[in-house]
């Protein structure tokens, strides 16, 4: 048996043991996401398509899987879905500006050795692909935070139907504040772990601080970490606002409908 198969089998068994049906769904969501990611990459190899547009479509599909497939379709998940999409679009604009200026796309000089056998003139826009890498590494955290805020907001609204839009928004923000620390932490450590080899490399070859900060690979990694943090921060007010708006709005609509019926 191969390592990946064994690990996947253990993960599947554990997920079923803990989560039952939901566990199976969570496991398959991982596979669907992997499929979407592969398709995205294959589409990106076509130079006639704009990688940013492909990324946006992929993000919509991934958010759909993460939010609607793992959970269920209801008002909570719908608001979480729309908030994720809005955040991703805003973040993508920002990241596009950053990658255009900071020139962090593609490969760094530390990687030249293994690149020497490849043709690098492949006609695909690596600046835009760089932007899509950053957004894709954050999307899991964005959808997670969106669901984590919108579902307690709905509970709050259920128990206090008279709550105002503003109070509901503040409630969402206060939940978001508690999640912000742990979500950001999750991403930080995921990236730290991934860059362990790179950090050892820099230290082993005694790079100076100036060389590290300005090198393409390091600045690309650290900018990814910061953009991920910005994404997790942005989703909080956006979800709170959209959830508050939708929840109070639908109630008012129901009220007018009742009113109409009565008259």
């Amino acid at each position, binding site marked *: 048996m*191969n*390592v*990946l198969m*064994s*690990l996947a089998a*253990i*993960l599947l068994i554990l997920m079923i043991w*803990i989560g039952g049906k939901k*566990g199976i769904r969570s496991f398959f*969501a991982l596979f669907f*996401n992997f499929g979407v990611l592969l398709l995205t*990459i294959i589409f990106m190899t076509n*130079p006639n398509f704009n990688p940013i547009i492909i990324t946006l479509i992929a993000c919509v599909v*991934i958010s759909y899987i993460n939010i609607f497939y793992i959970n269920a379709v209801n008002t909570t998940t719908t608001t979480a879905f729309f908030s994720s999409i809005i955040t991703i679009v805003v973040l993508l604009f920002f990241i596009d500006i950053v990658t255009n200026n*900071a*020139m*962090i*796309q*593609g*490969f760094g000089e*530390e990687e030249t050795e293994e690149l020497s056998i490849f*043709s*690098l*003139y*492949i*006609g*695909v826009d*690596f600046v835009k*692909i760089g932007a899509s*890498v950053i957004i894709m*590494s*954050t999307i*899991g955290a964005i959808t*997670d935070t969106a669901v984590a805020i919108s579902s307690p907001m709905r509970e709050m609204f259920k128990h206090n139907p008279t709550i105002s839009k503003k109070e509901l928004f503040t409630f969402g923000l206060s939940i978001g*504040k508690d999640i*912000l*620390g742990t979500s*950001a*932490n*999750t*991403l930080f*450590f995921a*990236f730290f*772990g*991934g*860059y*362990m*080899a*790179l950090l*050892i490399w820099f*230290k082993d070859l005694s790079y100076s601080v*100036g060389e590290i900060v*300005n*090198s393409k690979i390091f*600045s690309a990694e650290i*900018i*990814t970490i910061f953009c*991920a943090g*910005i994404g997790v*921060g942005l989703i909080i007010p956006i979800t709170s606002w959209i959830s508050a708006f939708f929840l109070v709005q639908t109630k008012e609509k129901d009220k007018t409908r009742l009113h109409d019926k009565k008259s």
Partner: protein
Amino acid sequence: MNSLVNKFKEMGYKQITLYSIIAFCFVASIFWVNHNYSFYERPIAKVIEIHLEDTTEVTDMYQNKDHLFTQSLIAELKNGQEQGQRIHLTNQYSSSKAYDQEYHVGDELFISIDTNTKDESKLTGTIEDVKRDKYVLIVAWIFIFTLLFVGKKQGLFSIISLVVNAILLSYALDVYLNTSGIGLLFISSISIILFTVISLLLSNGFNEKTYAAIIATLLGTFISLLITYLVMLFTSEKGLRYEEMQFITSPYRIVFMAGLFVGALGAVMDVAITMSSSIFGLYEKNNNITVKALKASGLEIGKDIMGTMTNILFFAYISGSIPMLILYLKNASPLAFTLSINLSLELARALAGGIGIVLTIPTGLYTTIFFINRKRATK
């Protein structure tokens, strides 16, 4: 009433001082990063004129079409003995820009100055790299402002925890590289304990919820480390392709394992604190709640977070390989080969992290219940 007003004023002053300190740091650092040329030993030049000399269309052996451009640049030196002088540079870039850059007026570049030029009146040089520090700094400030604006105090704490953990990691690696005989796995284990204690205490304070989360995190992490290690042992690491692991100067297997556990730690901590604070919350609402009810609710919460947490790790790990996968595919590598060579380690990381996350649900549940039972006994 008066004291309330005073309190408000006091808080206001405190906040105003804090804000002005932050604003001062922001302005000072931005100013510094734009004028720090003399801190660098490598010559820096700022591009002031650009001419596009030549455009050619190229087709590589796999029928990929690209354009090659040649730019000639005139730049002004910003540091060193030749400060203020103009230098002539040439740059070639492609429209895909995988390993090259297009430069614009105003870009700052690290260069090397050619020493033995025949024409003394004209300085020439080669471009080595781009000065990226100011972009890193600006994005860092936007990150800090977003976290402070949204999270206020919690935002500040998560920034502090990020900085402390980064320094700790850097120090741990220094210790590893400077002392022979201490294994990286041992150092990582110590660091993992420190990371967990520091991050959880900073974000949740000194209380039983935090202690339960710390124990659950460590148990979850080490049990999944053991499982992964056993799997690697029994399968004799079949299917793991270390040859494409980048930047390797040390034993690659150990670096991979160490990275694996530091990487999953954040997610495991997240699960542990969610479990312990929600179960403690249930207990605080109703002190007489049965252990059975706590277990049932705890499992429900665990089910809800399991899927999304594994997804966070999955995307954070796999996305970084996108450029390399595209490069392989465009160089006519077969899909299966490309995936196995580039993704085996990332997938193993994501799966092992997922195992850690799922295992932390029961460990978190039982440690929290243990702490609650102890609290009940002392009452």
